Protein backbone atom coordinates (compact mmCIF):
# COMPACT_ATOMS: atom_id res chain seq x y z
CA UNK A 1 0.00 0.00 0.00
CA UNK A 2 2.92 2.24 0.80
CA UNK A 3 4.50 1.77 -2.62
CA UNK A 4 1.15 2.42 -4.26
CA UNK A 5 0.98 5.78 -2.56
CA UNK A 6 4.54 6.55 -3.57
CA UNK A 7 3.78 5.87 -7.21
CA UNK A 8 0.62 7.94 -7.07
CA UNK A 9 2.36 11.00 -5.69
CA UNK A 10 6.16 10.82 -5.52
CA UNK A 11 6.37 14.49 -4.56
CA UNK A 12 4.31 13.96 -1.41
CA UNK A 13 6.51 11.01 -0.50
CA UNK A 14 9.59 13.20 -0.94
CA UNK A 15 7.98 15.87 1.22
CA UNK A 16 7.34 13.36 3.98
CA UNK A 17 10.98 12.28 3.78
CA UNK A 18 12.14 15.89 4.12
CA UNK A 19 9.81 16.64 7.04
CA UNK A 20 11.10 13.56 8.83
CA UNK A 21 14.68 14.79 8.47
CA UNK A 22 14.00 18.43 9.27
CA UNK A 23 10.92 18.77 11.50
CA UNK A 24 11.18 22.57 11.85
CA UNK A 25 11.25 23.27 8.13
CA UNK A 26 8.69 25.66 6.71
CA UNK A 27 7.67 27.02 10.07
CA UNK A 28 10.07 29.94 10.17
CA UNK A 29 8.79 33.45 9.69
CA UNK A 30 10.27 35.63 6.95
CA UNK A 31 8.88 33.93 3.92
CA UNK A 32 9.73 30.72 2.18
CA UNK A 33 13.18 29.19 2.18
CA UNK A 34 13.35 29.81 -1.51
CA UNK A 35 12.83 33.54 -1.18
CA UNK A 36 15.17 33.84 1.78
CA UNK A 37 17.86 32.01 -0.08
CA UNK A 38 17.62 34.43 -3.00
CA UNK A 39 17.53 37.55 -0.83
CA UNK A 40 20.47 36.55 1.35
CA UNK A 41 22.82 36.20 -1.57
CA UNK A 42 25.93 38.23 -0.88
CA UNK A 43 25.08 39.41 2.63
CA UNK A 44 28.07 40.64 4.59
CA UNK A 45 28.29 42.13 8.05
CA UNK A 46 28.39 45.91 7.70
CA UNK A 47 25.99 48.38 9.25
CA UNK A 48 26.07 51.78 7.56
CA UNK A 49 24.12 53.30 10.43
CA UNK A 50 26.58 52.14 13.07
CA UNK A 51 29.48 53.14 10.88
CA UNK A 52 28.25 56.67 10.25
CA UNK A 53 27.27 57.25 13.87
CA UNK A 54 30.65 56.04 15.06
CA UNK A 55 32.33 58.34 12.55
CA UNK A 56 30.28 61.28 13.80
CA UNK A 57 31.07 60.56 17.47
CA UNK A 58 34.78 60.35 16.84
CA UNK A 59 35.15 63.37 14.59
CA UNK A 60 38.72 64.07 15.48
CA UNK A 61 39.90 60.65 16.41
CA UNK A 62 40.61 57.54 14.39
CA UNK A 63 38.12 54.71 14.40
CA UNK A 64 39.49 51.57 16.10
CA UNK A 65 41.06 49.46 13.43
CA UNK A 66 40.26 45.79 13.17
CA UNK A 67 42.82 43.40 14.61
CA UNK A 68 45.10 41.23 12.51
CA UNK A 69 42.26 38.83 11.80
CA UNK A 70 39.97 41.07 9.79
CA UNK A 71 37.29 38.43 9.59
CA UNK A 72 36.82 38.35 13.34
CA UNK A 73 34.55 41.24 14.21
CA UNK A 74 33.80 41.39 17.93
CA UNK A 75 33.35 43.73 20.83
CA UNK A 76 33.34 47.50 20.28
CA UNK A 77 34.80 47.33 16.86
CA UNK A 78 32.51 48.75 14.18
CA UNK A 79 33.21 47.26 10.74
CA UNK A 80 34.42 49.85 8.28
CA UNK A 81 34.35 49.61 4.51
CA UNK A 82 38.08 48.93 4.69
CA UNK A 83 37.52 45.87 6.88
CA UNK A 84 35.30 44.12 4.41
CA UNK A 85 37.12 41.58 2.32
CA UNK A 86 37.58 43.39 -0.96
CA UNK A 87 36.72 41.30 -3.94
CA UNK A 88 38.93 42.16 -6.82
CA UNK A 89 37.69 41.52 -10.31
CA UNK A 90 39.53 38.96 -12.32
CA UNK A 91 41.96 40.77 -14.60
CA UNK A 92 42.82 37.53 -16.30
CA UNK A 93 41.45 37.00 -19.79
CA UNK A 94 38.77 34.34 -20.05
CA UNK A 95 40.05 30.89 -20.97
CA UNK A 96 37.36 30.76 -23.66
CA UNK A 97 39.42 33.33 -25.55
CA UNK A 98 42.61 31.34 -25.17
Amino acid at each position, binding site marked *: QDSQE*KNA*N*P*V*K*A*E*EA*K*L*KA*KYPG*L*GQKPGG*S*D*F*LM*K*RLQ*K*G*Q*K*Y*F*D*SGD*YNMAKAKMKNKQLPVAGPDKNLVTGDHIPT*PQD*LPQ*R*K*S*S*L*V*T*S*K*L*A*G
Partner: protein
Amino acid sequence: STGVAGGNDFQWCFSQVKGAIDEDVAEADIISTVEFNYSGELLATGDKGGRVVIFQHEQESKNRPHLRGEYNVYSTFQSHEPEFDYLKSLEIEEKINKIRWLPQQNAAHFLLSTNDKTIKLWKISERDKRAEGYNLKDEDGRLRDPFRITSLRVPVLMPMDLMVEASPRRIFANAHTYHINSISVNSDHETYLSADDLRINLWHLEITDRSFIFEEPEDPSSRSFFSEIISSISDVKFSHSGRYMMTRDYLSVKVWDLNMENRPVETYQVHEYLRSKLCSLYENDCIFDKFECCWNGSDSAIMTGSYNNFFRMFDRNTRRDITLEASRESSKPRATLKPRKVSTGGKRKKDEISVDSLDFNKKILHTAWHPKDNVIAVAATNNLYIFQDKIN
Protein backbone atom coordinates in the same frame (compact mmCIF):
# COMPACT_ATOMS: atom_id res chain seq x y z
CA SER B 1 18.78 7.36 -35.04
CA THR B 2 16.51 10.33 -35.33
CA GLY B 3 17.19 13.77 -34.02
CA VAL B 4 15.09 16.88 -33.71
CA ALA B 5 14.63 19.88 -36.00
CA GLY B 6 14.82 18.21 -39.35
CA GLY B 7 13.62 15.19 -41.20
CA ASN B 8 13.78 11.61 -40.09
CA ASP B 9 17.46 11.37 -40.86
CA PHE B 10 18.40 14.47 -38.92
CA GLN B 11 21.58 14.14 -36.86
CA TRP B 12 23.56 16.47 -34.66
CA CYS B 13 27.33 16.36 -34.68
CA PHE B 14 30.19 17.96 -32.81
CA SER B 15 31.73 21.11 -34.23
CA GLN B 16 33.87 22.91 -31.66
CA VAL B 17 34.59 23.18 -27.94
CA LYS B 18 36.09 26.22 -26.18
CA GLY B 19 37.57 26.50 -22.73
CA ALA B 20 40.06 24.75 -20.50
CA ILE B 21 40.11 20.99 -20.06
CA ASP B 22 41.46 20.90 -16.52
CA GLU B 23 39.25 19.42 -13.83
CA ASP B 24 39.78 22.32 -11.44
CA VAL B 25 37.28 24.91 -12.55
CA ALA B 26 37.77 28.46 -11.29
CA GLU B 27 34.50 30.10 -10.23
CA ALA B 28 35.12 33.03 -12.56
CA ASP B 29 35.29 30.73 -15.60
CA ILE B 30 31.77 29.37 -15.17
CA ILE B 31 29.73 30.50 -18.19
CA SER B 32 26.57 32.26 -17.13
CA THR B 33 24.97 33.27 -20.42
CA VAL B 34 25.19 32.46 -24.17
CA GLU B 35 23.54 34.45 -26.97
CA PHE B 36 23.69 34.53 -30.78
CA ASN B 37 23.11 37.88 -32.46
CA TYR B 38 20.29 38.42 -34.99
CA SER B 39 22.22 37.07 -37.96
CA GLY B 40 24.00 34.32 -36.09
CA GLU B 41 27.33 35.74 -37.20
CA LEU B 42 28.30 36.58 -33.63
CA LEU B 43 28.04 34.44 -30.49
CA ALA B 44 28.52 36.09 -27.09
CA THR B 45 29.24 34.45 -23.73
CA GLY B 46 29.29 35.99 -20.27
CA ASP B 47 30.84 34.41 -17.18
CA LYS B 48 30.81 34.62 -13.40
CA GLY B 49 33.97 36.72 -13.49
CA GLY B 50 32.07 39.51 -15.29
CA ARG B 51 33.85 38.91 -18.60
CA VAL B 52 32.31 38.81 -22.07
CA VAL B 53 33.82 36.81 -24.94
CA ILE B 54 32.42 37.29 -28.45
CA PHE B 55 33.02 34.75 -31.20
CA GLN B 56 32.59 35.45 -34.89
CA HIS B 57 31.61 32.97 -37.54
CA GLU B 58 34.30 32.65 -40.17
CA GLN B 59 33.20 32.10 -43.73
CA GLU B 60 33.43 28.57 -45.00
CA SER B 61 36.82 28.12 -46.60
CA LYS B 62 36.84 27.69 -50.34
CA ASN B 63 39.07 24.65 -49.93
CA ARG B 64 36.66 22.78 -47.69
CA PRO B 65 33.18 23.87 -48.68
CA HIS B 66 31.56 20.84 -47.06
CA LEU B 67 32.45 22.13 -43.62
CA ARG B 68 30.60 24.94 -41.98
CA GLY B 69 32.81 27.80 -40.92
CA GLU B 70 34.00 27.97 -37.34
CA TYR B 71 33.45 30.43 -34.55
CA ASN B 72 36.65 32.19 -33.49
CA VAL B 73 37.35 34.84 -30.88
CA TYR B 74 36.37 38.32 -32.07
CA SER B 75 36.49 40.40 -28.92
CA THR B 76 36.78 39.99 -25.16
CA PHE B 77 36.36 42.52 -22.37
CA GLN B 78 35.59 42.97 -18.70
CA SER B 79 31.94 44.02 -18.55
CA HIS B 80 31.13 44.13 -14.83
CA GLU B 81 33.20 44.33 -11.66
CA PRO B 82 32.31 43.14 -8.16
CA GLU B 83 30.71 45.88 -6.07
CA PHE B 84 29.50 46.36 -2.56
CA ASP B 85 26.23 48.02 -1.64
CA TYR B 86 27.12 49.55 1.73
CA LEU B 87 23.57 50.56 2.50
CA LYS B 88 22.19 47.04 2.22
CA SER B 89 25.38 45.22 3.27
CA LEU B 90 25.17 43.27 0.09
CA GLU B 91 27.89 42.10 -2.19
CA ILE B 92 26.91 42.63 -5.81
CA GLU B 93 28.25 39.85 -7.99
CA GLU B 94 29.92 40.66 -11.26
CA LYS B 95 28.38 37.59 -12.82
CA ILE B 96 26.79 38.38 -16.21
CA ASN B 97 23.19 37.20 -15.98
CA LYS B 98 22.16 38.07 -19.49
CA ILE B 99 23.48 39.39 -22.79
CA ARG B 100 21.04 40.74 -25.39
CA TRP B 101 22.15 41.90 -28.82
CA LEU B 102 20.46 44.94 -30.31
CA PRO B 103 19.40 44.87 -33.99
CA GLN B 104 22.32 46.06 -36.09
CA GLN B 105 21.87 49.53 -37.51
CA ASN B 106 25.37 50.43 -38.69
CA ALA B 107 28.82 48.90 -38.89
CA ALA B 108 29.16 48.63 -35.13
CA HIS B 109 27.48 45.99 -32.96
CA PHE B 110 25.66 46.81 -29.76
CA LEU B 111 24.81 44.56 -26.88
CA LEU B 112 23.30 44.87 -23.43
CA SER B 113 24.94 42.97 -20.60
CA THR B 114 23.53 42.83 -17.10
CA ASN B 115 24.46 41.57 -13.67
CA ASP B 116 22.03 41.58 -10.72
CA LYS B 117 21.87 45.34 -10.51
CA THR B 118 23.37 47.16 -13.48
CA ILE B 119 22.69 46.97 -17.21
CA LYS B 120 25.39 48.19 -19.59
CA LEU B 121 25.21 49.05 -23.26
CA TRP B 122 28.43 48.09 -25.08
CA LYS B 123 29.53 49.20 -28.53
CA ILE B 124 31.72 46.74 -30.40
CA SER B 125 33.44 48.38 -33.35
CA GLU B 126 36.16 47.45 -35.81
CA ARG B 127 39.09 49.53 -36.72
CA ASP B 128 41.14 48.49 -39.72
CA LYS B 129 42.58 51.82 -40.81
CA ARG B 130 44.61 54.52 -39.16
CA ALA B 131 45.68 57.95 -40.23
CA GLU B 132 49.32 58.53 -41.03
CA GLY B 133 51.19 61.66 -41.99
CA TYR B 134 50.03 64.11 -39.38
CA ASN B 135 51.55 67.54 -39.55
CA LEU B 136 51.99 68.28 -35.86
CA LYS B 137 53.27 64.94 -34.64
CA ASP B 138 55.54 62.32 -36.09
CA GLU B 139 54.86 58.60 -36.41
CA ASP B 140 55.85 57.78 -32.79
CA GLY B 141 53.42 60.38 -31.57
CA ARG B 142 56.04 62.90 -30.51
CA LEU B 143 55.04 66.47 -31.08
CA ARG B 144 56.86 68.31 -33.76
CA ASP B 145 58.04 71.85 -33.30
CA PRO B 146 55.50 73.89 -35.29
CA PHE B 147 58.11 76.48 -36.20
CA ARG B 148 60.17 73.83 -37.96
CA ILE B 149 57.37 72.77 -40.28
CA THR B 150 57.85 74.15 -43.76
CA SER B 151 55.13 72.35 -45.68
CA LEU B 152 51.73 70.86 -45.04
CA ARG B 153 50.53 67.45 -46.01
CA VAL B 154 47.17 65.73 -45.89
CA PRO B 155 47.10 62.69 -43.57
CA VAL B 156 46.38 59.46 -45.41
CA LEU B 157 44.33 56.50 -44.17
CA MET B 158 46.47 53.38 -44.17
CA PRO B 159 45.29 49.83 -43.52
CA MET B 160 46.23 48.30 -40.19
CA ASP B 161 45.66 44.94 -38.48
CA LEU B 162 42.05 44.63 -37.49
CA MET B 163 41.35 45.84 -34.00
CA VAL B 164 38.03 45.17 -32.35
CA GLU B 165 37.22 47.60 -29.60
CA ALA B 166 34.53 47.38 -26.97
CA SER B 167 33.45 50.53 -25.21
CA PRO B 168 30.67 51.11 -22.69
CA ARG B 169 28.15 53.63 -24.04
CA ARG B 170 25.49 53.61 -21.33
CA ILE B 171 25.27 52.38 -17.80
CA PHE B 172 21.80 51.79 -16.31
CA ALA B 173 22.31 51.48 -12.57
CA ASN B 174 19.67 51.16 -9.87
CA ALA B 175 17.11 50.05 -12.41
CA HIS B 176 15.72 47.23 -10.29
CA THR B 177 14.91 46.57 -6.67
CA TYR B 178 15.06 42.83 -7.07
CA HIS B 179 17.63 40.89 -9.04
CA ILE B 180 17.33 41.30 -12.78
CA ASN B 181 17.26 37.90 -14.37
CA SER B 182 15.63 38.35 -17.74
CA ILE B 183 14.48 40.86 -20.32
CA SER B 184 13.03 39.84 -23.67
CA VAL B 185 11.78 42.15 -26.41
CA ASN B 186 9.10 40.82 -28.72
CA SER B 187 9.62 40.84 -32.48
CA ASP B 188 6.63 43.13 -32.88
CA HIS B 189 8.66 45.81 -31.05
CA GLU B 190 5.49 46.63 -29.15
CA THR B 191 5.71 44.29 -26.21
CA TYR B 192 8.42 43.08 -23.89
CA LEU B 193 8.74 40.73 -20.96
CA SER B 194 10.38 41.31 -17.64
CA ALA B 195 10.91 38.46 -15.25
CA ASP B 196 11.85 38.33 -11.64
CA ASP B 197 11.73 35.25 -9.42
CA LEU B 198 8.04 35.25 -8.85
CA ARG B 199 6.13 36.38 -11.90
CA ILE B 200 6.22 37.14 -15.61
CA ASN B 201 4.89 40.45 -16.74
CA LEU B 202 3.97 41.08 -20.33
CA TRP B 203 3.99 44.80 -21.01
CA HIS B 204 2.89 46.87 -23.91
CA LEU B 205 5.41 49.60 -24.46
CA GLU B 206 2.64 52.19 -24.77
CA ILE B 207 0.57 51.09 -21.77
CA THR B 208 2.36 51.49 -18.47
CA ASP B 209 -0.42 50.92 -15.96
CA ARG B 210 -1.58 47.46 -17.00
CA SER B 211 -0.11 44.14 -17.96
CA PHE B 212 -1.29 40.61 -18.66
CA ILE B 213 -0.22 38.07 -16.09
CA PHE B 214 0.37 34.49 -17.16
CA GLU B 215 -0.19 32.08 -14.36
CA GLU B 216 -1.34 28.48 -14.39
CA PRO B 217 -3.72 27.87 -11.49
CA GLU B 218 -2.26 25.48 -8.96
CA ASP B 219 -3.92 22.11 -8.49
CA PRO B 220 -4.60 22.13 -4.72
CA SER B 221 -4.29 18.38 -4.44
CA SER B 222 -0.73 18.49 -5.71
CA ARG B 223 0.43 21.24 -3.39
CA SER B 224 3.47 20.37 -1.31
CA PHE B 225 6.48 21.95 0.29
CA PHE B 226 8.23 21.57 -3.02
CA SER B 227 5.54 22.87 -5.34
CA GLU B 228 6.42 26.55 -4.94
CA ILE B 229 10.06 25.82 -5.62
CA ILE B 230 9.63 23.56 -8.62
CA SER B 231 6.94 25.70 -10.23
CA SER B 232 9.13 28.79 -9.98
CA ILE B 233 9.95 30.06 -13.46
CA SER B 234 13.63 30.14 -14.30
CA ASP B 235 13.41 31.42 -17.87
CA VAL B 236 10.94 32.89 -20.32
CA LYS B 237 11.37 33.41 -24.08
CA PHE B 238 9.21 34.79 -26.86
CA SER B 239 9.01 32.68 -30.00
CA HIS B 240 10.54 34.27 -33.11
CA SER B 241 7.05 34.65 -34.52
CA GLY B 242 5.93 36.64 -31.50
CA ARG B 243 2.83 34.48 -31.17
CA TYR B 244 4.05 32.14 -28.43
CA MET B 245 6.00 32.32 -25.20
CA MET B 246 7.92 29.54 -23.50
CA THR B 247 8.55 29.18 -19.77
CA ARG B 248 10.97 26.87 -17.98
CA ASP B 249 10.35 25.61 -14.49
CA TYR B 250 12.38 22.99 -12.66
CA LEU B 251 10.92 19.90 -14.31
CA SER B 252 9.23 21.06 -17.48
CA VAL B 253 9.02 23.50 -20.38
CA LYS B 254 5.66 25.04 -21.23
CA VAL B 255 4.58 26.80 -24.40
CA TRP B 256 1.94 29.49 -24.00
CA ASP B 257 -0.21 31.10 -26.67
CA LEU B 258 -0.18 34.82 -25.97
CA ASN B 259 -3.92 34.87 -26.67
CA MET B 260 -4.63 32.52 -23.79
CA GLU B 261 -3.21 33.35 -20.40
CA ASN B 262 -4.92 30.77 -18.20
CA ARG B 263 -3.00 27.67 -19.24
CA PRO B 264 -0.14 26.60 -21.53
CA VAL B 265 -0.87 25.00 -24.92
CA GLU B 266 2.01 22.54 -24.72
CA THR B 267 3.93 21.00 -21.81
CA TYR B 268 7.15 19.03 -22.20
CA GLN B 269 8.70 17.00 -19.38
CA VAL B 270 12.44 17.56 -19.21
CA HIS B 271 13.48 15.11 -16.49
CA GLU B 272 10.37 13.80 -14.81
CA TYR B 273 12.44 11.09 -13.06
CA LEU B 274 13.72 13.81 -10.70
CA ARG B 275 10.27 14.13 -9.13
CA SER B 276 11.06 11.25 -6.80
CA LYS B 277 14.44 12.76 -5.90
CA LEU B 278 13.29 16.17 -4.71
CA CYS B 279 14.35 15.61 -1.12
CA SER B 280 18.01 15.09 -1.98
CA LEU B 281 17.87 17.76 -4.67
CA TYR B 282 16.69 20.16 -1.98
CA GLU B 283 19.52 19.12 0.33
CA ASN B 284 22.21 19.62 -2.29
CA ASP B 285 20.59 22.89 -3.48
CA CYS B 286 20.11 21.57 -7.01
CA ILE B 287 16.39 22.22 -6.76
CA PHE B 288 17.26 25.92 -6.95
CA ASP B 289 19.14 25.57 -10.27
CA LYS B 290 17.80 27.92 -12.91
CA PHE B 291 17.67 26.31 -16.33
CA GLU B 292 17.12 28.32 -19.50
CA CYS B 293 15.33 27.34 -22.70
CA CYS B 294 15.42 28.46 -26.32
CA TRP B 295 13.55 28.23 -29.64
CA ASN B 296 15.02 27.27 -32.98
CA GLY B 297 14.77 29.80 -35.80
CA SER B 298 11.47 28.51 -37.15
CA ASP B 299 9.92 27.94 -33.68
CA SER B 300 9.37 24.29 -34.59
CA ALA B 301 11.74 23.00 -31.90
CA ILE B 302 12.78 23.94 -28.38
CA MET B 303 15.87 23.09 -26.37
CA THR B 304 16.75 23.11 -22.68
CA GLY B 305 19.44 21.68 -20.43
CA SER B 306 19.50 19.08 -17.69
CA TYR B 307 22.08 17.34 -15.47
CA ASN B 308 25.03 15.10 -16.34
CA ASN B 309 25.76 17.54 -19.18
CA PHE B 310 22.62 16.31 -20.91
CA PHE B 311 20.45 18.63 -22.93
CA ARG B 312 17.03 17.97 -24.41
CA MET B 313 15.28 19.00 -27.61
CA PHE B 314 11.58 18.75 -28.41
CA ASP B 315 10.05 18.89 -31.88
CA ARG B 316 6.71 20.65 -31.55
CA ASN B 317 5.29 19.15 -34.73
CA THR B 318 6.28 15.51 -34.50
CA ARG B 319 6.34 15.49 -30.68
CA ARG B 320 9.66 13.65 -30.90
CA ASP B 321 12.27 14.42 -28.29
CA ILE B 322 15.94 13.64 -27.93
CA THR B 323 18.52 13.73 -25.16
CA LEU B 324 22.13 14.53 -26.09
CA GLU B 325 25.30 15.00 -24.07
CA ALA B 326 28.04 17.65 -24.20
CA SER B 327 31.19 15.77 -23.35
CA ARG B 328 34.85 15.77 -24.31
CA GLU B 329 34.54 12.07 -25.17
CA SER B 330 32.28 12.74 -28.13
CA SER B 331 34.26 15.78 -29.25
CA LYS B 332 35.84 14.47 -32.38
CA PRO B 333 35.39 16.67 -35.46
CA ARG B 334 32.00 16.01 -37.07
CA ALA B 335 31.37 13.03 -34.78
CA THR B 336 27.64 12.31 -34.64
CA LEU B 337 26.09 12.70 -31.22
CA LYS B 338 24.53 9.57 -29.86
CA PRO B 339 21.14 9.92 -28.19
CA ARG B 340 21.25 9.33 -24.43
CA LYS B 341 18.66 7.79 -22.18
CA VAL B 342 18.07 7.78 -18.44
CA SER B 343 16.60 4.52 -17.20
CA THR B 344 13.69 5.03 -14.89
CA GLY B 345 12.33 1.54 -14.47
CA GLY B 346 13.89 -1.31 -12.60
CA LYS B 347 15.85 -2.73 -15.51
CA ARG B 348 18.61 -0.62 -16.91
CA LYS B 349 19.33 -1.31 -20.56
CA LYS B 350 22.82 -1.21 -21.96
CA ASP B 351 23.93 2.37 -22.72
CA GLU B 352 21.31 3.78 -20.40
CA ILE B 353 22.30 5.62 -17.27
CA SER B 354 20.47 5.29 -13.99
CA VAL B 355 19.13 8.34 -12.18
CA ASP B 356 21.45 7.76 -9.23
CA SER B 357 24.50 7.79 -11.50
CA LEU B 358 23.75 11.23 -12.90
CA ASP B 359 26.35 13.86 -12.09
CA PHE B 360 24.38 16.76 -10.62
CA ASN B 361 27.45 19.01 -10.71
CA LYS B 362 27.43 18.89 -14.50
CA LYS B 363 24.51 21.15 -15.27
CA ILE B 364 23.61 22.63 -18.62
CA LEU B 365 21.87 25.83 -17.63
CA HIS B 366 22.55 27.93 -20.74
CA THR B 367 21.97 27.02 -24.38
CA ALA B 368 21.47 29.03 -27.56
CA TRP B 369 20.14 28.15 -31.03
CA HIS B 370 21.39 29.95 -34.15
CA PRO B 371 18.57 32.17 -35.46
CA LYS B 372 18.65 30.65 -38.95
CA ASP B 373 20.74 27.49 -39.10
CA ASN B 374 20.88 24.26 -37.18
CA VAL B 375 23.84 25.32 -35.10
CA ILE B 376 23.63 25.29 -31.31
CA ALA B 377 25.87 26.57 -28.52
CA VAL B 378 25.77 24.67 -25.22
CA ALA B 379 27.54 25.92 -22.08
CA ALA B 380 28.78 23.09 -19.87
CA THR B 381 30.14 24.83 -16.76
CA ASN B 382 33.38 26.38 -18.09
CA ASN B 383 33.30 24.91 -21.59
CA LEU B 384 31.37 26.10 -24.63
CA TYR B 385 30.31 23.39 -27.09
CA ILE B 386 29.14 24.14 -30.61
CA PHE B 387 27.15 21.47 -32.43
CA GLN B 388 25.69 21.52 -35.94
CA ASP B 389 23.61 19.39 -38.25
CA LYS B 390 25.39 16.81 -40.30
CA ILE B 391 26.06 18.05 -43.81
CA ASN B 392 26.26 15.31 -46.34
